[in-house]
């Protein structure tokens, strides 16, 4: 049994893609376009690495996995600007105000499939 962190989630990506492929009467999935925020905790390269093995008996076995990564952004509580944080800081580079977490960078979804 594979209990790697990425396993159940890679399996779910394949299930979702197959579901949409079947609905569209496709015999195979050529490409899966996935959006992964860097805060989702999933290492894009690990998903990629195990994809081939997990997809073996599915409609996705020949699919190319295209991963669009999203850098997390904070929103400044003072000037409202969205910005990428620097290590060990939550400070806005424009005004020095404090940034708060946003949903940007937590994405993890199948955007589309190519069939």
């Amino acid at each position: 049994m594979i209990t790697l962190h990425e396993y159940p989630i890679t399996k779910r990506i394949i299930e979702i893609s197959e579901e949409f492929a079947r609905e569209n009467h496709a015999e195979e999935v050529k490409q899966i376009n996935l959006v992964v925020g860097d805060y989702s905790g999933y290492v894009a390269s690990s998903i990629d690495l195990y994809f081939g093995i997990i997809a073996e008996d599915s409609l996705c076995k020949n699919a190319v996995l295209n991963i669009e990564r999203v850098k997390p952004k904070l929103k400044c509580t003072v000037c409202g600007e969205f910005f990428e944080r620097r290590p060990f800081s939550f400070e806005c580079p424009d005004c020095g105000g404090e940034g708060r977490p946003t949903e940007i960078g937590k994405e993890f979804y199948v955007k589309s499939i190519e069939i």
Partner: protein
Amino acid sequence: MSETKEVEVMQSVYDKNDEIAKQTNARLTEKGIFAVNVMGSPGAGKTSSLVKIMEKLGDITPYVIEGDIEADIDTKALQALGIKTIQINTNGACHLDSPLIGEAADALDVQNGVLFIENIGNLVCPAEFEIGEHVKMLISTVTEGSDKPYKYPLAFEKASIILINKWDLLPYVDFDEEYFMKGVRALNPSAPVFKVSAKSDEGFEEVVSWIKENLKQ
């Protein structure tokens, strides 16, 4: 070769986990259970803190789901104290997910009380998965250092309550409280932060008061 067609999907990969988490949460609520997802690094004192909390719950029944990669040392210790505890071994996986919790809660036969779900010792993955809990309790420590909110922002952002354990060791370590709290507040303006020591017992009365207050809601 046939022409390629793009089909829009726009579906979250977490969908199944989150859906089961919602169902589990509803079922637990119906049974009068308040579920606490306990997160923290290995050695933060998750089990020791839970023991201190459970001692002070009075007539509220505690239940524990112990998540560990392997072994059942904590479960046996809790069972020896007479606490209804069940073990989940993930055999390598770094977090608990929602299907595991529903089954474990059924096996424990929980009813009216507080269910503590001790997640795998890890500050990364447990924060990403809803498991059917009502609140997330993060146990940090002075020995881990004050940079933890900056290194593991998601765990601090998602916490409903934060404990700083091993507070009795403060004189011996370089824990910068101001820097720690600055990071916590940037990520999480509202979670209460309690300084505790599972060794000396300090601070747990306040934690238990917070739990009792949230239990009523």
